[in-house]
């Protein structure tokens, strides 16, 4: 029997549907999540199965309904909040950082906040500066939160199920350009633990540590590198927090050369942390400085020829890797 394939969007939807069937406390809260199924149509069909009590359309009040989710999570439910564009998390920072992330600790472990915030990241959609950011670094900086960055339909489903079952606030970033990406997803139930990196492709000469959208870019670059006789290992941390440092460092020690890729801004970003972890952990094994590649340090421009140069591509990663390997 051929393996079943789902799109990334379908995998997300299936994870939600399964968890909503399993646990009546799980519900969805967000703008145009019900009949519209979100502008990306990721949630299509859920309101038909679960009703408008569990797939709840909200006003355009990101701060307000994120706060509602925190309170609902504390009192026995498992909200999954939908923030349409990752750029709008700006409006939820107080509720996520000063409330959700700290409630468990501040209360001496007495209250819990089992909620998930699903949101998006990624540029090159011609959506300009306020709809193209990849702001995962902010939440990764905050103790009390977990941050998930799935890169395949398989991972999206397994990680989302774990995120929903987790007793902590978890932020789940989906690359909006990846929703139509297809990949194998088994029929049988499975979950993927948070905090375990995945070697997406084994290799010996160079390690490409990549998150979310950049995993596909890294895999593409690895293909190009192979033609030059360079064997690249692609490592996907899958969660920036908790972070599976060991798998990253092991790979770096093996290959001695590392590029770190994330679609967020490189400066004070996810690549800074991953590079620092690798540079420290594999200090005596590296043949070259860890190279970081992220979004150019500019607001994302609208104009296509400009936007296209702001994010790493297979070709630019290939070029950097080739040079690092001395070819």
């Amino acid at each position, binding site marked *: 029997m051929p393996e079943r394939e789902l799109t990334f969007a379908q995998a997300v939807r299936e994870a939600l549907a399964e968890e909503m069937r399993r646990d009546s406390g799980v519900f969805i809260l967000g703008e145009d999540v019900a009949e519209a199924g979100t502008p990306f149509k990721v949630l299509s069909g859920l309101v038909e199965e679960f009703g408008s009590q569990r797939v709840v359309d909200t006003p355009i009040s990101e701060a307000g309904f994120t706060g509602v989710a925190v309170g609902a999570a504390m009192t026995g439910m498992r909200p999954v909040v939908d923030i349409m564009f990752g750029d709008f998390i700006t409006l939820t920072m107080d509720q996520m950082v000063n409330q959700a992330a700290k409630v468990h600790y501040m209360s001496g472990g007495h209250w819990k906040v089992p909620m998930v915030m699903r949101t998006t990241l990624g540029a090159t959609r011609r959506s*300009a500066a306020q709809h193209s950011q990849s702001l995962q670094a902010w939440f990764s900086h905050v103790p009390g939160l977990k941050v998930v960055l799935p890169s395949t339909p398989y991972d999206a489903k397994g990680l989302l199920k774990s995120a929903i079952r987790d007793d902590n606030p978890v932020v789940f970033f989906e690359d909006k350009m990846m929703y139509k990406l297809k990949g194998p997803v088994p029929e049988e139930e499975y979950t993927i633990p948070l905090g375990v990196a995945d070697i997406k492709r084994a290799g010996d000469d160079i390690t490409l540590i990549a998150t979310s959208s950049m995993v596909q870019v890294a895999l593409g670059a690895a293909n190009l590198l192979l033609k030059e006789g360079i064997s690249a290992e692609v490592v996907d941390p899958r969660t920036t927090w908790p972070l599976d440092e060991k798998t990253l460092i092991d790979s770096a020690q093996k290959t001695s050369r590392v590029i770190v890729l994330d679609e967020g801004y490189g400066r004070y970003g996810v690549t800074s942390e991953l590079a620092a972890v690798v540079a420290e952990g594999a200090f005596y094994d590296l043949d070259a400085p860890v190279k970081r590649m992220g979004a150019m340090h500019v607001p994302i421009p609208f104009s296509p020829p400009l936007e296209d140069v702001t994010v790493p591509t297979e070709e630019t990663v290939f070029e950097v890797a080739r040079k690092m390997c001395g070819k």
Partner: protein
Amino acid sequence: MTIATMHPEAGPVTAAEHEKWLRVYRKMLTIRLFEEHVNDLYTRALMPGLAHLYSGEEAVAVGICEALRIDDYITSTHRGHGHCLAKGASPDRMFAELLGKEAGYCRGKGGSMHIADPATGNLGANAIVGGSVGIATGAAFSAKNRATDRVAVCFFGEGALGQGSLYEVMNLAQLWKLPVIYVCENNQYNEYTHYRETTAGTILGRAAAFGVETALVDGQDVRAVHEVASRLVKRARARGGPAFLQCDTYRYGGHHVGDINREYYRSKQEEYLWKTERDPIRILANFLLDRGYADAASLDRITSEVRTTIEAAVKFAIDAPYPDVDEVEQDVYA
């Protein structure tokens, strides 16, 4: 609160009045034809990304901007083409911006949702719902504190009523008696959800609670819009304080150009009725004809002139070059 859906009987015709309504007609038509071409560029895959069309709501932007001076400020929204054109932007540089060309108002960096133009007091369209309420209020703060008599108009859709910052700044504006007018374009829908499902209580009550002057107007009737806007602008200019104007209106098309199948959230019948019975351009045309300000031929002439301008503007934009790739790192910092 005042409800302004009717006009006092017209006084004697003046040349200025006559000229004004013809200018208003031309502006509304410019927006309508501009948007038709935006849609056309989209369907022909000549425009990158999406755009949110203003067709059906022209009377709001034009009626209000006609009450403003060029040095007054506006802030606009994701559905901003109408506001920008009404405040004085020219279609050629607008189209250029929509296509990401260097000749665009933002050198192609902003696109449809970020058109801004100091020359016409346009502080910028804004892709964050409610994102510009603070900016408009700040411009009014500045106008007052620099001892000018400028006024700021903040356009937003009724969806922005969901954003708490609107209430924060209305409180500030009223405390400080700032010359800002909050214009709520109630086109009935927040994306794909009817506003009644997202809006408890009343719209005007939300401004009145802060002591802000409120008014409601039929947003399809440009003369009504203009009349109440003129009054509120005059009041603001004279340091009378902020106001909140609700304009009931309708967007003819989808939430954006790609929103084609809309029947799950609104009926074709509803759209048909608005387009045929409540069209702002037709309502004004009837007035112009009734009053003898224009005849069918002169209206046709205006239409064909506007069409010519718009078509030339489209061509200008299509032919214009993209910015040089090196520009990507320019203008991050001033």
